[in-house]
């Protein structure tokens, strides 16, 4: 894959991916999140793939550059948040969700669903005697409005091409070519985005005060330490839609004037580390990360740091100390992290979910273009 050198290159690649996606007339999405992997979903993925191929069905694993008419897409998706019912297999276009799938069920899924177009009802979710074939009808999902996790569970979490096909990196494009730094900062401020790491601090205000710092270099740091018990939204976002987080961080880099980003992921999330590593490598390969992104002056590099089992490293100053290779000890503030953070330089630290909100804000938020598309993101759930 050659590097994308311009906006046009990116748009061309996106339309190739979109066309390939539209040619996947049927799709099987096997949940590849931590919970379902523990239930053996990766074996299910391999078996389904082998069985389809053995039947001579054209299988599309990665959105191909030479799209094949009428192929069956088979993908490892991110977590659906329904791990208890896992391993989960989602079937499109019908939107059916199969729960507690076992290796022995693969044959029936291929024969009945892919070949025959019928639902395997015994695998559908049941509640109070009612069968719910479609994922969106299940009471657990019916009331959900997904923003950050809109693609999580619905796209291949291991491929940048899937992310591009659903409109990924459009916000980056806009931030790079249609907006200046102040406009991005204002957009984030106006969206009322609040930090999701627990404190609820207005992200726009933090970004602006970091961008105002005289000293350079400045750093963009993402807090993926997720230490709160029972919480796994950051894990889902990192595992299931890693490019969204990366896109949000690159946009923060543009707005704040930084060319270096760090993601700190807790030790207990090896799968999130793998997915992020893969995603960063793909973004580097096609030139969405690195020097002179899309032929502009802007460069951005990203690094991953794995935690080593210290809850306190979720705190900002402990986290930056840990990235520096030291003991993760919080320090007294002020000075604040935006002034003296990583390597004692101005640093913008946000939570995973905070950054993952950014692409949507930049893409839909432009005031005036389409007021009905304008969405703000105040706290959509209680702040912990």
């Amino acid at each position, binding site marked *: 894959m050659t590097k994308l050198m311009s906006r046009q290159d990116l748009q061309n690649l996106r339309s190739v991916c979109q066309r390939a996606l539209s040619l996947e007339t049927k799709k099987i999405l096997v949940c590849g999140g931590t*919970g379902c992997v523990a239930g053996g979903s990766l074996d299910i993925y391999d078996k389904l793939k082998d069985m389809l191929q053995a039947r001579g069905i054209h299988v599309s694993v990665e959105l191909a550059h030479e799209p094949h008419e009428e192929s069956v897409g088979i993908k490892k998706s991110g977590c659906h948040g329904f*791990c208890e019912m896992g391993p989960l297999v989602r079937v499109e276009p019908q939107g059916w969700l199969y729960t507690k799938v076992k290796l022995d069920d693969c044959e029936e899924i291929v024969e009945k669903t892919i070949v025959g177009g019928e639902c395997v009802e015994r695998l559908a979710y049941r509640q109070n005697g009612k069968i719910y074939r479609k994922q969106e009808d299940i009471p657990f999902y019916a009331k959900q409005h997904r923003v950050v996790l809109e693609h999580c569970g619905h796209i291949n979490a291991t491929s940048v091409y899937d992310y591009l096909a659903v409109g990924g990196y459009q916000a980056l494009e806009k931030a790079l070519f249609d907006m200046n730094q102040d406009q991005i900062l204002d957009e984030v401020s106006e969206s009322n985005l609040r930090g999701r790491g627990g404190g609820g601090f207005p992200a726009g205000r933090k970004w602006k005060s970091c961008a105002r710092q005289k000293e350079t270099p400045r750093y963009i740091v993402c807090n993926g330490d997720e230490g709160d018990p*029972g919480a796994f939204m950051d894990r889902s976002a990192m595992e299931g839609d890693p490019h969204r987080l990366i896109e949000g961080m690159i946009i923060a880099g543009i707005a704040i004037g930084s060319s270096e980003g760090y993601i700190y992921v807790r030790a207990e999330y090896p799968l999130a580390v793998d997915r992020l590593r893969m995603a960063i490598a793909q973004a580097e390969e096609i030139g969405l990360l690195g020097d002179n992104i899309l032929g502009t002056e802007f460069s951005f590099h990203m690094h991953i740091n794995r935690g080593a089992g210290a809850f306190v490293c979720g705190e900002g100053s402990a986290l930056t100390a840990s990235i520096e290779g030291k003991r993760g000890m919080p320090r007294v503030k002020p000075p604040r992290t935006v002034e003296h953070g990583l390597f004692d330089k101005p640093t913008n630290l946000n939570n995973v979910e905070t950054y993952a909100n950014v692409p949507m804000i930049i893409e839909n938020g432009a005031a005036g273009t389409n007021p009905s598309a304008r969405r703000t993101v105040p706290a959509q759930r209680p702040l912990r």
Partner: protein
Amino acid sequence: MTRQFDFAPVDRILDNHPRSELSTIAILQDIQEHYHYLPREVFPYVAKAIGVGEARLYGVATFYENFSLEPKGKYVIRCCDGTACHVRGSIPILERLRQELGLVGGKKTTDDLNFTVETVSCLGACGLAPAMTVNGTVYGAMTPDKASELLRELKAELEKGGGQA
């Protein structure tokens, strides 16, 4: 009697990282992954290679829970004792494992260096609570009986001469 310590694996690990203090944690993680613990011999060696004091390196190694200066077993079993797993009964599982492996008091590793049993905080798989990992592979919806069964399987694997997942 001085045992010759083979630094070749450490050298390979060092080659994968920039030689600076920044790499401290990543290097220690890789070393631990290789040996399952941090052998004392590596401290002066690594400290010199990345240009930090040996005391500082010990400081880092003892700060983070994941690092161990004691040898660990071939199978490292981590019982999740995060909130969800605790509420759904992680402790009886932990006790069963410790009892079957004869681990008493503060002991975490069996004398034959085959098994280490420890606790870990939330693995992010609470939907499958109680959860545990064996050398990184997650097992969900555990019970004491299922844990015993898993132990039997692991022991059988050891006998077959396997034992490295």
